[in-house]
């Protein structure tokens, strides 16, 4: 197989980073990205893109840690290069605060982020309703810039990108040798995965350039994430809700919760409301599969179900998916050379 043809379905952070990893590990592959949405209309564009991992209940911790470590290292290098502003990647420091001391004071990722430590008494004075906190420095991937930068890197490798709604992976059989499913929430329909469910998140994007720190309540519901031009205020975690329509009551409520963590947000302006459906699963599906139908075979690599933690592990799962694509190619080459005999 001289030049395997790989189709990547999905153009959010997972699809684009997976396509890039595939191209990096297999330069002779021809990679095409197919998606019904591109930036600025993907779920990734709604997310703040903070590198603070979400713990998946059913993925082994060492694997999540490896994914996070690879992602952090990759972005860390870009953040300190001349490309950082174009890629939308920057360091940000801040605090995660808890109303009562959590059972696990040291999360699995505490040695990967920078300068992780417990907050001092003096620092906690800023949060009178919170008893415990963690201070650290991490990275943020602003979207659309990060997605546009990934697209630019892909175009430079000759990767084509098309707006196309793929209703069935078998549509791609014949056109492509391998299909990579990074469809996020779309995988619910595309591959009928009933373990995948939406967790609706509503956020506000506001202009408050004096906010230089992130603040996150350990319950994961209230957060303030300063980006390059906008601060993301969140949020909600509504399991099973498919609604993409902003709710005005929720907007008010998010704003109030964030102002109680950071009173200066009262002066924030130009409030924009966005909604995204976190493509949630108890474990991220990074897996190889060979679909079969009437004697035909279609190698598929799945990389979806990142829920609330997509940005934190995107590069790590993209690396793993690219590795699985490599295995698919070897398998195809093996079977094609057997066919030649």
């Amino acid at each position, binding site marked *: 197989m001289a030049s395997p043809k790989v189709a990547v379905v999905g153009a959010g952070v997972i699809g684009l980073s997976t396509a890039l990893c595939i191209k990096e590990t297999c330069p002779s592959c021809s990679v095409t990205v197919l998606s019904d949405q591109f930036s600025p209309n993907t779920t990734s564009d709604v997310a703040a893109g903070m590198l603070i991992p979400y713990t998946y209940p059913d993925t082994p911790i060492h694997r999540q840690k490896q994914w996070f470590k690879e992602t952090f290292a990759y972005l860390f290098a870009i*953040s*300190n*290069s*001349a*490309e*950082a*502003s*174009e890629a*939308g*990647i*920057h*360091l*940000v*420091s801040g605090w995660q605060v808890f109303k009562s001391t959590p059972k696990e004071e040291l999360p699995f990722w505490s040695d990967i982020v*920078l*300068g992780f*430590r417990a*907050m*001092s008494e*003096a*620092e906690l004075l*800023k949060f009178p309703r919170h008893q415990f906190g963690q*201070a650290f*420095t991490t990275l943020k991937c*602003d979207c659309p810039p990060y997605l546009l930068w990934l697209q630019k890197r892909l175009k430079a490798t000759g990767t084509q990108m098309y707006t196309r709604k793929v209703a069935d992976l078998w549509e791609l059989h014949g056109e492509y040798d391998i299909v990579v499913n990074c469809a996020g929430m779309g995988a619910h329909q595309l591959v009928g995965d009933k373990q995948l469910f939406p967790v609706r998140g509503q956020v506000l994007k506001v202009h408050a*350039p*004096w*906010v*230089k*720190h992130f603040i996150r309540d350990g319950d994961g519901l209230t957060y303030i994430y*300063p980006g*390059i*031009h906008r601060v993301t205020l969140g949020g909600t975690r509504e399991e099973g809700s498919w609604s993409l329509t902003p709710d005005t009551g929720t907007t008010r409520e998010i704003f109030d919760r964030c102002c109680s963590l950071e*009173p*200066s947000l*009262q*002066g924030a302006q130009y409030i924009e409301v966005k909604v995204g459906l976190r493509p949630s699963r108890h474990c991220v599906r990074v897996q190889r599969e060979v679909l079969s139908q009437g004697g035909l075979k279609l190698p598929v690599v799945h990389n979806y179900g990142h829920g609330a933690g997509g940005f934190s592990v995107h590069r790590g799962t993209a690396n793993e998916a690219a590795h699985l694509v490599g295995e698919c190619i070897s398998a195809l080459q093996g079977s094609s050379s057997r066919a030649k005999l």
Partner: protein
Amino acid sequence: MRVAVIGAGVIGLSSALCIHEQFHGLVPSLELEVYADHFTPHTTSDGAAGLWQPYLSDHGNLQETLWNKETFDYLLGHLHSPEAKEMGLYLISGYNLFTEPVPDPSWKNIVLGFRNLTPKELELFPGYSYGWFNTAMMLEGRSYLPWLTNRLTQRGVKFFHKKVESFQELFSQGVDVVLNCSGMRAGALQPDPELQPGRGQIIKVLAPWVKHFIITHNLNSGIYNSPYIIPGREFTVLGGIYQHGNWSEENSAKDHNSIWDSCCRLLPPLQKAKIVGEWSGLRPARRSVRLERESFRLGNLQGEVIHNYGHGGFGITIHRGCAMAAARLFGRILQEKQQPGTPPGPRL
């Protein structure tokens, strides 16, 4: 009682406010006036980035460390007030970088979360092997000075756009007490060989992805002669110039290149930042802040001067502590001036 403040930078305006807040109720005849030839946005305080951070060492000057602490605590207390935005006040964290280990600074317990940098953090800054991380505050002069001006105007304090040539000039007009907050030009009012310009130049850029201050130190070249990056609300300040004895307020191309090259080396993403301005200013440098009383007697003219100048590159950092100290000196003057025959006022 007529009180004239010379200077409308952060020192002059904050001293005026402290005095008015504390004594307006006690001295019904108190008339406060501010005289300056430059007002915001044309003062030295307007050019400063506005980061609260003292010099590395207080050289045993504990008084100044206490004034710095008083200022920090005062500002921290205002962080959550509705005024904070108008004041230009907000929290900021960042890095101080060195090429060798140094003793902890006098202010390590004043700021929040002071700690040494980890090896991984130092990877961000090749060439620097040691450093600190802490959370401090920004108080942007371009916002704080108008806020002070509004508070003073509301209180009926009068402003005069005028260059005062001498203390006598004011005393002969009937002023009783002069607050000399003339900063760099104090020497024109009264020679002071200890007061020298510490010329600085800065480049203003748009780099909104920078969320931390980064201040490097070169123990051989002295304070602020090593690149620094301080992100504000609207733009980021790049600097690293401290020229002792240089009175020029003209931007120098050589300094521009030095700042630009060294800051881009420190933070490569800055190469893509858009330059939106440049400014030079003179830090009113002195071995120690001159904060003291002086009595004047010239013929039948007499008056009191409270000097409050020489804050170098830490005026914003120390301003409130000095303003309160100046107000205490004013209180003592009032005590001494209590006229016989009038009912004694509250002990000051």
